[in-house]
């Protein structure tokens, strides 16, 4: 039981912010917790922090393992205080929500099983994740937007590819 909890804490990583979010300090001051981004999200990706998140209560989070961000950019248009800066849908490469990192010790591809789940689902296709030797996925930090789709589709549990939030 205790070990389970400790494992959970060890694997805990900060949830993602929606695309276009400003710096975390500025974000907490700008965000008025109005939930317009949550309500406009067509994929139900965004959910709100509750009281256990302390001063971050009511701010929008994306838990990639639950539902990742599909980069439709609707939330950035509705923010009334520019806590989320507007980004056009065609400019989704400019988003920087986080950075994906592959754990090569557990990744199926690195362990001899053919798996291209993250590579094939990546919205920045063949740029953010490429296959080395047609086999091993590699993340390119300069192209990765941190949407969390790779983490969502990873067949391993816990996922072998994890998106680290840029707003931790």
């Amino acid at each position: 039981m205790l070990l389970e909890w400790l494992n959970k804490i060890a694997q805990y990583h900060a949830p993602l912010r929606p695309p276009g979010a400003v710096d975390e300090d500025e974000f907490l001051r700008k965000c008025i917790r109005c939930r317009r981004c949550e309500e406009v999200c067509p994929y139900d990706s965004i959910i709100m922090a509750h009281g256990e998140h302390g001063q971050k209560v009511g701010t929008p989070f994306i838990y990639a393992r639950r539902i990742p961000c599909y980069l439709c950019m609707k939330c950035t248009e509705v923010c009334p205080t520019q806590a989320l800066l507007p980004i056009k849908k065609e400019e989704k490469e400019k988003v920087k929500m986080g950075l994906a990192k592959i754990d090569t010790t557990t990744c199926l591809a690195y362990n001899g099983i053919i798996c291209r789940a993250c590579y094939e689902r990546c919205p920045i296709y063949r740029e953010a994740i490429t296959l080395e030797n047609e086999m091993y996925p590699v993340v390119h930090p300069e192209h990765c937007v941190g949407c969390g789709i790779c983490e969502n589709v990873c067949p391993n549990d816990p996922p072998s590819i994890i998106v680290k939030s840029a707003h931790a």
Partner: protein
Amino acid sequence: MKTMSSFEQKFYRNLHWIRRLTQWAVVVFIFVVPFLNRQGIHAIIGTFYSIRIGHLDLMDPALMFQTILLTQNIYFPAILAGSIPIILALVFGRVFCSWMCPYNLLSEYVGALRKRVFPKKQTRILNHNPRPHWYWTVLGSIVTLLMVSGLPVITYLSMPGLISSQVADLVLHATIGVEISLVIILLLIEFFFAPHFWCKYACPVGAVLTLFHYKHTMRVQFDPKGCTCQDLKALSCNAACPLGLDPRHRDIYPYCYNCGECIYACHKHQGKSLSFSFQTNKQKNIIPLKFNEKQDGPFKEANL
């Protein structure tokens, strides 16, 4: 005495029920909006912190000022969004609180329940209006806390926003956060100790709206000539006021939120002395009351 049109009289006679209908319509509204969003209809999005109806942006003016103070930067669309509620407050006063706020609706029912459960505590019907500086002291300390801590304190203390966002969570994700316990704690305090203290003294949302109260804002006006309660040893207007004010005096502001319960009670008892007015009556409202609290004991509500 001011003559009242028949429409006005009809309005005053049904004021309580018109207001209750509005309040419940707002409650239905905050349930329907997230429900529609879940169905994929995004025409109306938001909560009482900020809401977008079609392309019309609305924002709580208190949060507008909070954002300006915290970011020290003026974002023009936010000012525009905050100005519509400000115009409403300039014309009609703090009607958001009394006619729309879901917390006030809960608080009024808690107050009514308190009157049933502890009838003895409610015998004093003649109210005293508190001096306005208490009100501004509370708002000032909240703003100071906001500036010192750099935290969006008004957001945390905005009860209408908190309730509507928790309702949105309930409808969208079938969960409720622990922050709803703040509402329950406040309602329990109101039930056992201080009825309606939050709306009367502490709420920063209402306080910012009251900042825009000026001499042509709609106010409750008392005209002693139409008063029918003076000989009856009971003042129905005082008994009806949910905030415990004495609406016969002019110094009910900044506390009064124009709910009109006193006007409704007055007209129910065939009186005509209380009404809404956009002008401040120049004459001093000194009421020749044939009553002495010390001699006659506390008022009892008349059974007319």
